[in-house]
């Protein structure tokens, strides 16, 4: 009897395992996608909705000043080549990370700005998470506010999207969690007091109240990876850019909110 009971229990576990396994890899259907904005309290939404209350706009203003200020050996400002960002940068952030032919891999918006600085302006690149880089990124991305997220669906990018998706689905770290375990399977629940949300990066760089500062998507990703107690990656690491790219394909068609406010 005892052994028969064990067999039944094992059989049940196997059956349960089979039932759970496909769920773990289920991405959120497009109709059920929700921006992190929709999970926020009315007070926090109000901060984002009012451009004179949204602290992210302070960085956007800084970014506008940087856009027009000369830099590097060429003495050119961003505006000297790209003219008015309101026209030239409209919709640009919606398709980043994008493929860079010279590097033969995708680069995110921060890296694109730094590539422009080193290649075109012959200036020193900004440090990741520096106020200047965040400001210029926020200013450029703000020009795409309301534009639908549209990462390029090219054959060149496909393998990188796949790698990013693999990262998202793979269990890792001391807690043996994959991103998907929270953000696909449990986005409607809470982790401690906070909404889990759906991992749709619609408003980066974001002003995060917890940070009391603007921060990049990579900063947010590194937070999560630390939380999983997994091996982290340096800012600008290809793995993080691939993950960013996959996340943007998840959010395809959703409007850009930069600079978003998050709790």
């Amino acid at each position, binding site marked *: 009897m005892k052994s028969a009971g064990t067999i039944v229990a094992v059989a049940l576990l196997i059956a349960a395992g089979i039932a759970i396994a496909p769920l773990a890899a289920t991405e959120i259907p497009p109709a059920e996608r929700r921006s992190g904005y929709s999970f926020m309290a009315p007070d926090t939404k109000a*901060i984002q909705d009012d451009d*004179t*209350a949204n*602290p992210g*706009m*302070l960085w956007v*203003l*800084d970014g506008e000043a940087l856009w027009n200020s000369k830099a590097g050996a060429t003495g050119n400002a961003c505006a000297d080549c790209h003219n008015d960002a309101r026209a030239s940068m409209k919709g640009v952030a919606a398709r980043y990370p994008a493929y860079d032919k010279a590097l033969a891999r995708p680069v995110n918006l921060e890296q694109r700005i730094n590539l422009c600085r080193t290649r075109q302006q012959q200036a020193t690149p900004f440090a990741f998470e520096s106020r200047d880089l965040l400001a210029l990124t926020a200013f450029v991305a703000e020009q795409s506010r309301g534009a639908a997220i549209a990462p390029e669906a090219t054959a060149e990018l496909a393998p990188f999207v796949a790698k990013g998706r693999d990262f998202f689905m793979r269990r890792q770290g001391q807690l043996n969690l994959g991103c998907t375990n929270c953000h696909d399977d449990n986005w409607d629940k809470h982790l401690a007091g906070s909404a889990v949300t759906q991992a749709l990066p619609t408003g980066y760089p974001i002003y995060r109240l917890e940070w*009391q500062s603007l921060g990049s998507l990579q900063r947010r990703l590194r937070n999560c990876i630390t939380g999983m107690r997994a091996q982290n990656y340096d800012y600008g690491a290809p793995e993080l850019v691939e993950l960013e790219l996959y996340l943007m394909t998840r959010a395809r068609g959703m409007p850009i909110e930069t600079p978003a406010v998050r709790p």
Partner: protein
Amino acid sequence: MASALINVPKKAKRGEIIEIKTLMSHIMETGYRHTAAGQLVPRDIITSFTCRFNGAEIFRADLFPAIAANPFVTFFTIANESGKFDFEWIGDNGFTETASAAISVE
């Protein structure tokens, strides 16, 4: 770098209650935090915010370390005449910033 974001209605009716919103860029370092090496990070906060209307003080606030970075101060006043609001923020390490906004009252 960019400092203040001010939201004052450009026009108002005489006697109308208007809301004034101000956002100032500042790290508001509390002075209670330590670096990884154990060194105290010195306090660096805004200590005072003042709003004057046509030279007369109409609002003042003292700020303390518990106030978050980039302080957002909003208050109400009654629009009695056209004029100019002058805002001033004073803080540690010689921090001073000013901004102004005009209103026309009909």
